[in-house]
């Protein structure tokens, strides 16, 4: 990627990220659409021999042989039996029955996580810079499980089966489906087995935001990653005949518009179709739009397909406006014609001009790439939100990372829009989604793993969470694109990832497989359900009183019964922290946005004399006054030794 390494501070502290062997012994497994091995992001110059721990292979198939692998791309497998059992044999004239990526998504995520350094990378000149993955010296193993027809769970499980056998250290999965309980979710089940083998699993949180309860991949043994913006943008202004200008974004590169105002028409007025405003295939009459600029509404069909429809109808340009669903979120696209995307508010004003002016005109002015955009990061509107729909007491998402307008490697079999008519071929592409933020965290986890090879996946996740930031440098809280207001832990979890801080977190909240089993006992899982999840017979200890509040998670989610009657709710949470830094004394500080819950911590200071020493503390939450049903309130608990801050968000819900 370009820009995110600087945005994350990776460039400022190269010495903190060991280039020693440990960094190049970490193996990141990516379950996705495969890989384009010719991409420069997978060049292996400077990398030593393949780690001796590696047991994987480079499988042969359509346009892919073992020679496509190297010391960077050390493994490549494909899994299609489940896909073919349902949809029939793969048509190799349409998709490669091999690890080769025909889509681009897998190359993008793999290069984001662990791509080698590539100078002068850009998409048609946009986002120009030195591209690199988060963990430039980590090795990559790809497991192709997604095909044109989708990603089938029997293939995903088979890939996870192999990734465990092959000995990957990190599993990156930018996919999700459904919100079934953990023991019925094959990704959660596979991830449990991987976690038990010491593998760090990071998954995308989903793009179903900004609605609440919209998360995917909510299991506590998975790191659930939301998306935030970067300090980079690609402005393209709409200039109207009435002299007004509106900011938009675009990645269009090509013959620009004639240097004059052009006739401007709303698709909804030009089309006879009921949803003619959406610029869907077959809805734009050429005689009404040829030679003009067309305003289309977002929704239903893809943004780039709208551009294709407008171009095919003979129009000269397109203004694409958000609707309430996306608000002010601006995602840039490499449209096939001069086009720009504007927010909902701008769209409404532009429409009122279109409907009131007898001869509306407009043009689009492209400004290229701009950096230093503030405020940033902002939580992406599309980023799925908590609360956790399966276990309210587990706060999700865990963290956010860059996921909007991310440049990374791309397939040579498809254009930057992904449209079949797009005959352009690019080495890098800019796309958005929690699919992009997940591999950022996968790569950063590989960096932490390289620096601390003996840390468990839970300790790595804890370090990434407790060092994440929730305020800008000016002290203001991180904002949410969808509201323009401060975001909450249900939007960003513990905050935005800060890899430099994560290398030296001070204290970690560690968890073992046994702790996760106690967690499912606390959920009252039956023995068969636990066996389904854990793949082995396990019976909860009838003499033990299991509680989710004892589950050593690095964040807190407290649930009160609304209108809990005269007896005020008192909930106690226990946590155990492990000192992974130098000896020292940590003091707790609390901040809360709402006095309705009194919070106390015992003890208020923890003194550590040695590394790996563990100390426990208890947090008592006393509901002073009940809030209405479905209310939420937030607080923050921080342990600090004056140098390191170990932060945990606290979410209160009234149910």
């Amino acid at each position: 990627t370009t820009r995110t390494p600087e945005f994350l501070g990776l460039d400022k502290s190269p010495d903190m990220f060991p280039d020693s062997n440990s960094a190049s012994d970490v193996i990141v497994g990516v379950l996705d659409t495969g890989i384009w091995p010719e991409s420069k992001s997978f060049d292996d110059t400077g990398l030593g021999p393949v780690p001796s721990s590696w047991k994987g292979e480079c499988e042969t198939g359509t346009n892919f042989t073992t020679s496509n692998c190297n010391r960077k791309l050390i493994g490549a497998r494909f899994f299609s039996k489940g896909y073919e059992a349902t949809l029939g044999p793969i048509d190799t004239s349409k998709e490669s029955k091999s690890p080769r990526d025909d889509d681009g998504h897998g190359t993008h995520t793999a290069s984001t996580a662990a791509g080698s350094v590539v100078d002068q990378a850009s998409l048609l000149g946009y986002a120009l810079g030195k591209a690199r993955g988060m963990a430039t010296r980590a090795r990559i193993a790809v497991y192709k499980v997604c095909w044109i027809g989708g990603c089938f769970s029997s293939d995903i499980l088979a890939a996870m089966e192999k990734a465990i056998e092959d000995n990957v250290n990190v599993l990156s999965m930018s996919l999700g489906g459904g919100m079934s309980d953990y023991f019925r979710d094959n990704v959660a089940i596979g991830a449990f087995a991987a976690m038990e083998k010491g593998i760090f699993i990071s998954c995308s949180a989903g793009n179903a935001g900004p609605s609440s309860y919209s998360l995917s991949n909510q299991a506590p043994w998975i790191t659930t990653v939301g998306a935030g913006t970067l300090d980079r943008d690609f402005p393209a202004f709409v200039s109207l005949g009435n002299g007004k200008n509106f900011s938009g974004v675009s990645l269009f590169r090509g013959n620009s518009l004639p240097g004059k105002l052009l006739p401007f028409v709303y698709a909804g007025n030009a089309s006879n179709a009921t949803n003619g405003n959406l610029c869907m295939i077959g809805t734009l009459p050429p005689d009404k739009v040829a030679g003009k600029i067309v305003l289309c509404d977002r929704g239903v069909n893809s943004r780039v397909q709208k551009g294709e429809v407008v171009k095919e109808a003979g129009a000269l340009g397109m203004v694409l406006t958000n609707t309430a669903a996306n608000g002010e979120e601006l995602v840039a696209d490499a449209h096939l014609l001069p086009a720009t995307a504007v927010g909902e508010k701008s769209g409404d004003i532009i429409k009122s001009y279109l409907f009131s002016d007898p001869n509306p005109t407009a043009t689009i002015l492209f400004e290229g790439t701009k950096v230093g955009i503030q405020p940033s990061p902002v939580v992406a509107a599309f980023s799925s939100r908590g609360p956790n729909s399966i276990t309210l007491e587990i706060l999700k998402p865990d963290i956010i990372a860059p996921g909007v307008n991310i440049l990374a490697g791309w397939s040579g079999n498809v254009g930057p829009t992904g449209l079949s008519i797009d005959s352009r071929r690019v080495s890098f592409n800019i796309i958005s989604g929690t699919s992009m933020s997940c591999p950022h965290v996968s790569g950063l986890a590989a960096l932490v793993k390289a620096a601390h090879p003996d840390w468990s996946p839970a300790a790595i996740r804890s370090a990434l969470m407790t060092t994440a930031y929730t305020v800008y440098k000016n002290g203001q809280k991180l904002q949410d694109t969808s509201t323009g207001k401060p975001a909450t832990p249900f939007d960003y979890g513990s905050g935005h990832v800060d890899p430099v801080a994560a290398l030296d977190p001070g204290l970690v909240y560690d968890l073992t497989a046994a702790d996760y089993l106690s967690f499912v006992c606390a959920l009252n899982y039956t023995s068969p359900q636990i066996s389904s999840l854990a793949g082995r017979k396990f019976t909860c200890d009838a003499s033990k009183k299991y509680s989710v509040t004892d589950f050593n998670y690095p964040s807190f989610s407290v649930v009160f019964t609304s209108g809990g009657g005269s007896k005020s709710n008192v909930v106690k949470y226990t946590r155990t922290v492990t000192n992974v830094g130098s000896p020292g004394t940590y003091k707790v500080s609390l901040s809360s946005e709402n006095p309705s819950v009194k919070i106390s911590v015992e003890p208020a200071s923890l003194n550590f004399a040695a590394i790996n020493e563990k100390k426990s503390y208890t947090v008592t939450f006393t509901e002073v006054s009940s809030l209405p049903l479905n209310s939420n309130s937030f607080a923050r608990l921080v342990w600090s030794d004056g140098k390191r801050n170990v932060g945990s968000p606290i979410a209160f819900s009234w149910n």
Partner: protein
Amino acid sequence: AAVEKNTEEQRWSTYIVHMAKSEMPASFEHHLHWYDSSLKSVSDSAEMIYTYDNVIHGFSTRLTAEQAQTLESQAGILSVLPELKYELH
């Protein structure tokens, strides 16, 4: 005939069968034989698509809903989960 075949085809779905490996009957030498015998008890023609031993103990196969239900009621079967299609984010 095509419609009939298609209807027949549609009756079949992919399932992921979770086995309680520790309950394998002593009469079986290897758990794969046990899996196969369990599968054949509900369908002569069904084949295993994948077998799993790390992520779960079990296998995936194509069954009708009735066959899946019958299989799930057998001893040693933890669950028979319908295949899910996941989406890239």
